[in-house]
């Protein structure tokens, strides 16, 4: 990894952060510009593309029918998968998902699932037999850091844009009817990651900054200010005070972003 960015540049990032500055002139807790486009893939039931600075993530949602899990016979199924496709970074290689893409998918999944923002019971077609299965596929198109936040945002935007086929049950047979209904989305969890470089907390790290970052902590929060998912990553640690600080940053950032996006 460090062959791409010279050690000098990494040192520079560290030194700047110690002075409260960053390479791109942002303050330590500033987020890069966010742009969201919805409905960019017509053949998907839902889709969205998020730009977070130079990071670009596309999420496509496909809705199919399938069997429910035995322990939740009345609920639809949500599955999140993430692909770090080779177009996104010289460091990504083709092949089955590695631990990074699995972690990314599972953290995005956790934020959506634990916030209960999708009314899963409305995805049930026939209890115990047939339900809608919602496939959320995260495609990282350009990696410039903070993939978790960008992917979570894109997944949420894509779900809000998702339509389910209309159906009826006739003589025990499932019939797909004309038209669509929107996926029952009740809430909008927002995921905010805070990184730690030389003991300082920073928001929305770039890919370069991630190379010098000790560790990161991600909080997904709901409209009511409650926390619904957390993930610490990276090979460093946080003091208990820093954890609380990061949770406050995440809550504040989420309020700000909700206002901006009207979510």
């Amino acid at each position: 990894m460090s062959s791409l960015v010279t050690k000098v540049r990494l040192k520079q990032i560290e030194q700047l952060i110690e002075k409260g500055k960053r390479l791109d002139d942002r303050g330590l807790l500033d987020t890069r510009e966010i742009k969201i486009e919805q409905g960019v893939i017509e053949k998907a039931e839902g889709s969205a593309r998020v730009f977070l600075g130079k990071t670009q993530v596309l999420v496509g949602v496909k809705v199919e029918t399938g069997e429910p899990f035995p322990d939740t016979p009345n609920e639809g199924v949500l599955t999140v998968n993430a692909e770090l496709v080779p177009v996104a970074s010289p460091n990504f290689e083709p092949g089955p998902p590695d631990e990074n893409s699995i972690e990314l998918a599972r953290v995005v999944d956790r934020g959506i699932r634990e916030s209960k923002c999708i009314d899963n019971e409305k995805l049930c077609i026939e209890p115990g037999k047939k339900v809608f299965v919602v496939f959320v596929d995260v495609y990282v198109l350009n990696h410039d850091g903070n993939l978790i936040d960008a992917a979570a945002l894109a997944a949420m935007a894509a779900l809000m844009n998702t339509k389910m086929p209309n159906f009826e049950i006739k003589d025990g047979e499932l019939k797909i009817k004309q038209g669509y209904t929107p996926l029952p989305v009740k809430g909008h969890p927002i995921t905010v990651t805070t990184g730690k470089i030389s003991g300082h907390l920073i928001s929305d790290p770039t890919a370069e900054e991630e190379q010098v970052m000790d560790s990161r902590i991600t909080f997904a929060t709901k409209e009511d200010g409650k926390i619904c998912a957390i993930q610490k990553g990276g090979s460093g640690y946080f003091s208990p005070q820093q954890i609380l600080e990061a949770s406050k940053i995440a809550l504040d950032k989420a309020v700000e972003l909700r206002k901006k996006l009207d979510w």
Partner: protein
Amino acid sequence: MNEKQEKLIDKKGIRLDGRKADELRPVKLQVGVLGNADGSAYIEHGKNKILAAAFGPREVHPKHLMQADRMVLKVRYHMAPFSVQERKSPAPSRREVELSKVIKESLEPALFLELYPRTGVDVFIEVLQADGGTRCAAITAAALAIADAGVPMRDLVVGCAAGKVDDTVVLDLYDAEDKLGAADVPVAYMPSLNAITLLQMDGILDPEEFEKAVNMAMEGCKKIYDMQKEALKTKYMVVKEVEE
């Protein structure tokens, strides 16, 4: 989901398995339980039964993973097919891949990676029986296995979870509480350095409850930390006596 109506804590504040809110399950630790590993440990944390083995510092395999400027720690968390109610396929699940990663990242801060370039330490964790909180118990055992292998450490790492069951913040959730409770917050902690090395959460907590859960988990970690040190002494004090 009608089980959810059932109360997990009674009016006196006692949990279904008889514990109080801030009470740990019984923990038993043993160091040096395997012959071929450089270091090993076994933990029984409630009904969790977990083995951890450490190998190294040794050559890195496969070779391309070797780092010229530091040691590479590899961790595999794996559940035995018979460790849970319904047989688990022995192939690594996505959950196990994620847990392997977060456990590795919880142990790395304890190691002097930069002092052992071109080497690797491999930690293998086998969950023989699972009853909620396996990642935490696995971390407790893995740290002991690394210490037993003689790899210098800044501190031992201890894992312990807290969470929310019914409306109460409780320590160290077991399987039923984990599944039916409102939230689970696994924490790994280096007590002497006051450093949190793993933190995850699923479920819903408000910020006050979250703070309380993290503090409670750290207190639980401190108690297990004493047992960890005791377990190491138990092995190495015996050796000393024999030498004399």
